[in-house]
């Protein structure tokens, strides 16, 4: 139980760059993630006009973590990340709804063709 909580807490870290007070530039470390989340999240964050720079890297392929860097024109780095995650979540919801509607439609058409 205890180890589960500890590893959950460590999933998202922020790289502390010598205690700088600049909140607009941040490097996040996502543990147990790879290009699946990295690239799609990078794409969503880049759509934000406030973002000056956004990129991710996999420091070493044997370690399952990604470094996600965000630099903004003035917004807080964590806010931009939160917005990116929210936008990615809504894209997924939209895709899911469209997919389910399309599957229903196809199954209905199949049944109609079988009956007619």
């Amino acid at each position, binding site marked *: 139980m205890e180890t*589960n909580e500890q590893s959950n807490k460590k*999933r*998202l870290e922020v790289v502390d760059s010598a205690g700088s007070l600049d909140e607009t530039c941040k490097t996040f470390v*996502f543990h147990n*993630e*790879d*290009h*699946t*989340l990295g*690239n*799609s999240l*990078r*794409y969503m964050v880049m759509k934000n006009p406030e973002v000056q720079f956004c990129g991710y890297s996999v420091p070493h392929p044997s370690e399952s973590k990604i470094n996600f860097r965000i630099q903004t024109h003035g917004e807080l780095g*964590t806010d931009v*990340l*939160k917005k990116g*995650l*929210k936008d*990615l*979540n809504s*894209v*997924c*919801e*939209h*895709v*899911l709804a*469209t*997919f*389910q509607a*399309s*599957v229903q*439609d*196809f*199954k209905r058409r*199949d049944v109609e063709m079988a009956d007619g």
Partner: protein
Amino acid sequence: NFRIDMIKMNDDELEFDMVGIDAAIANAFRRILLAEVPTMAIEKVHIYNNTSIIQDEVLAHRLGLIPIKADPRLFEYKSEGEDFSPEDTIIFQLKVKCTKNSQAKDTTDPDEMYKDHKVTTKHLKWIPMKGQDTIFKEGDLRPVNDDILIAKLRPGQEIDIRVFCNKGIGKDHAKFSPVATASYRLLPEIYLKSPVTGALAEKLQSCFSPGVIVIDTENGNKVARVANARKDTCSREVFRHDNLKDLVELKKVRDHFIFSVESTGILPPDILVEEAIKVLMKKCQDFMSDLDT
């Protein structure tokens, strides 16, 4: 600007088009389908007796790869070090003994000479755990296919093992992957820069897969026209011919993805795609809640 069209759907495979999405998200879905949608698969094998010619570890490896038809959404992940419980484990028993068929005379056909010499997935019997027999009926939890050959025996050899299935994801071991494969390709686009007529049109038609280029007859002239670029297999054969290579431009439509998902049979492919999208949503939600704390 965003749509999904189903092309082909049955219990084993699904072909659908996703139009208007970016490659980053389409690739994320493909990667999740391969590696992060959970399934149940044989994880631990307790071997009581194995006198067959197949080594213990080879037998265990083969058992792990057998697809088990159990809805993984009804089970929990098993945590390390904890005992097996009905919420996270399915138990099967494989007990086969090969004997000589005393009635067979003068044949060399092993099917007639021996009884139970082929150990297949049909011999895997589900042993219900406490509480599982109320939720699942006999025959609900079984391997997807009855005819997968596990081992071959000869008279006197027997296999007596008990296997335990757990929930896992493809990232951990490929046996947990719910798809035979999941892939996508971009819709090809063929653009004829100038009209192609006559014998050259016939040659152009032969450079592509059948159905891609169609020849119309206008005023007695044969003119080539792109009928169905989707059927093109992108062999780029046109560029091998000097008289055709400057007339054609081969491109891809950057936001039109033709997905092809083949399921191993555990879950229908349309459910698999839905689960993959839900996995990505859950990742976002988990990190959003991490940020809020």
